[in-house]
């Protein structure tokens, strides 16, 4: 699904170790690091994998996730099994941070019919970065609903495509029906600093959304 990769020959999965681990495997440097998860969500082609690739320290990997599609005929009068499952490629990457933290970023499909998969991937995530494209803002509505249903704090990053219209923030906020506290930022998923800034804005928002801790650690904002 989101496995379209420019520059890669179609249908030719990246070669990896099969049975014989080679130097291509990026092992975790330590066993005692704290591993955290953020999801990067949005419609097809909005730049999820680009952003993950921009930040990841390992070549982006993907898993093939078998999904039963709802809304498809399950019964078949002829008795021949109808193909009711579809395979979705879920891309992810990894970024080691100072402080013994490893951040995993998972690109998640934005369609409602993949909701169970979305829930499975989002479980345990600290937050979601929803990507949007001003040429088709409405394509991000479904995933925003799903993120909200999951109860996951999120930020919206508008990935700036060269020919995409530019709107004032208040217009974008109105179109996306954003809560005033939800961060909205512009970003170029190909640029490291812009992508980092998007994650920083998300992390700040996640922290703000958490219940205040003990008075000793409460002097934020």
């Amino acid at each position, binding site marked *: 699904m989101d496995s379209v990769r420019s520059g890669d020959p179609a249908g030719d999965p990246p070669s990896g170790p099969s049975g014989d681990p080679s130097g291509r495997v990026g092992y975790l440097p330590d066993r005692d690091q704290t591993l955290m998860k953020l999801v990067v969500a949005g419609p097809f082609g909005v730049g999820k994998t680009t952003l993950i690739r921009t930040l990841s320290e390992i070549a982006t990997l993907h898993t093939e996730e078998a999904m039963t599609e709802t809304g498809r005929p399950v019964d078949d009068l002829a008795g021949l099994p109808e193909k009711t499952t579809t395979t979705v490629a879920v891309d992810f990457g990894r970024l080691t941070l100072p402080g013994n933290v490893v951040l995993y970023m998972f690109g998640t499909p934005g369609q409602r019919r993949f909701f169970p998969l979305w829930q499975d991937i989002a479980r345990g995530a600290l937050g979601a970065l929803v990507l949007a494209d001003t040429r088709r803002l409405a394509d991000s509505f479904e995933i925003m609903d799903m993120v909200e249903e999951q109860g996951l704090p999120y930020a919206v990053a508008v990935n700036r495509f060269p020919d995409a219209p530019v709107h004032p923030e208040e217009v974008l906020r109105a179109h996306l029906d954003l809560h005033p506290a939800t961060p909205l930022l512009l970003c170029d998923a190909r640029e490291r600093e812009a992508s980092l800034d998007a994650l*920083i804005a998300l992390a700040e928002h996640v922290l703000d959304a958490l219940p205040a801790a003990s008075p000793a650690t409460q002097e934020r904002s």
Partner: protein
Amino acid sequence: MTAVPRRRMVPAYLATGGRSRPGGEGFERLTVLFADRAEPPTGLETEHRRLWDLLRPGALTVVEAAAHLRLPVSATVFLAADLVEAGCLRARAPIPPAQQTDRSIVERLLVGLRALR
């Protein structure tokens, strides 16, 4: 160490049937897996052996192992659970359970991200 996974008589999706708790319970995508010893255990069936060989040089999460082996995450969890049960693989939760809702987790994320800026 004599306990090694034996060949299954039932398919993977039925393999939890005879256990007191389902294999893979408590495993998630970011569970860290690492080999518990330097020598490969004997008697592993092919898929278990592939996972163990992959993890021999270092630690990986379940989802990374799945991607490298081109296996579904669910199947990788089953294999990992078998190997952990057999004592030749170890698994560790991504975040210490006591800290999962702790603000300090997110603060560490924020500090770490800002440091890369």
